[in-house]
């Protein structure tokens, strides 16, 4: 019963999560009118912000209740807290299996949508902001754990490419839920795209990104809640299977080639210039 005792010693952390969570749930989903549509604020966003404000690393003055021990213990608890959430998503996929199979080709191929980052983010980083090799790590993928592993393996995380992927990884960890809630709200507000396509695209990131994305979508289009959850969940499951390979065999080689063919030449020329 060491496990029990270990968790009991963390009562402050669990109590803080309950208090923060209950306040967040009581505030509930709020709509902020924005241009043509509305941005949806979700309890999970308030919970994250309130917890971050009680975190001694963010707000050193509030270090009284939550200490170093709690912060260290919270990290592995995220993984466990996401498990019931994933289980719930699984139970939405089973009953909708016929919808999933019918949408199979779209579900499989939208995994290649990951490459959209090369079209949009890579030019901005390399030509717009004149970034160096860190642009390779930053823009080849959505920078979740499997993509970190790819860069760590090929360049190490201490290289410029590693700094790039780590930067996007951390920004995704800190702000990913907000970005995905906004993305889904805006895309749903346009009322141009098929909600099923918006739902599939919600599965491309981490579990919490999917939560924010599907939360915003189901609030905007409540009639299709079951279908949205099933398609997003199926897409997220596929991402575990395909994400690593799309990154490793397609996205990273493509980004490297474009970089070497364009900005890489300048790097080499500059280096030669300095030496001369």
């Amino acid at each position, binding site marked *: 019963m060491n496990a029990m005792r270990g968790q009991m010693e963390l009562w402050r952390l669990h109590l803080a999560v309950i208090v923060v969570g209950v306040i967040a*749930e009581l505030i509930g989903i709020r709509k902020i009118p924005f241009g043509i549509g509305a941005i949806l604020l979700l309890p999970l966003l308030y919970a994250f912000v309130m917890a971050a404000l009680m975190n001694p690393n963010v707000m050193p003055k509030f270090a009284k209740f939550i200490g170093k021990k709690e912060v260290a213990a919270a990290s592995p608890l*995220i993984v466990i807290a996401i498990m019931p959430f994933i289980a719930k998503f*699984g139970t939405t996929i089973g009953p909708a299996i016929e919808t999933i199979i019918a949408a199979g080709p779209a579900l499989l191929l939208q995994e290649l*949508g990951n490459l959209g980052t090369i079209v949009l*983010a890579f030019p901005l980083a390399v030509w717009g902001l004149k970034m160096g090799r860190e642009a390779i790590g930053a823009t080849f993928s959505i920078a979740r754990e499997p993509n970190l592993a790819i860069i760590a393996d090929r360049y190490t995380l201490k290289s410029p490419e590693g700094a790039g992927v780590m930067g996007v990884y951390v920004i995704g960890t800190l702000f990913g839920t907000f970005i995905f809630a906004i993305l889904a709200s805006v895309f749903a507000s346009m009322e141009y795209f098929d909600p099923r396509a918006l739902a599939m695209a919600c599965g491309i990131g981490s579990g919490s990104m999917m939560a924010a994305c599907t939360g915003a979508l189901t609030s905007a289009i409540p009639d299709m809640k079951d279908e949205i959850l099933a398609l997003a969940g199926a897409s997220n499951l596929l991402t575990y299977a395909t994400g690593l390979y799309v990154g490793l065999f397609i996205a990273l080689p493509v980004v490297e080639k474009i970089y070497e063919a364009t900005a890489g030449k300048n790097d080499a020329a500059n280096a030669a210039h300095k030496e001369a």
Partner: protein
Amino acid sequence: MSESIAIESSKRPKIDIVDHAVTLVIVCLVGLIMNTTGPGTAISDGFVGMVVIYLISMAGLLLTRFAPFYLPSVAWISLVGILVTLPWTPGSEWVVAQAKSVDFLALATPALAYAGFAIARKEIEIAKHSGWKLALVACFVFLGTYAGSVLIAELILNLQGI
């Protein structure tokens, strides 16, 4: 923290099943409180639903630990959740009905609260050090990935005519 994540994700981690079983009970109880507060589901319905969710999660963890090949725990849990709710699985209607009384957003709230408490000093340093350029690039990475997936899915659905 990040180095270890990168390495762990390619290897099979040793999962302490008892430890996870206990922690999962606490996490599910916290989730049940959220499910009762926010969506306002009766606690008796929510409790049975949570027990079902707990058992699915535990089955997934046991498979992660003992299956002949390795998949991440989230993948196994998801697969178990699918399997027990397929229309041709005996008793699936009951499982689906119970799971319906648990709200997916209520389960995400505590996970994000733990995430807020878990922010490490190193992460704040990396975010500061990366600067506004990388933050802007990150926004475009997410936008590009999301929009790319939407466009391809939209195109294929149109081609299929469904």
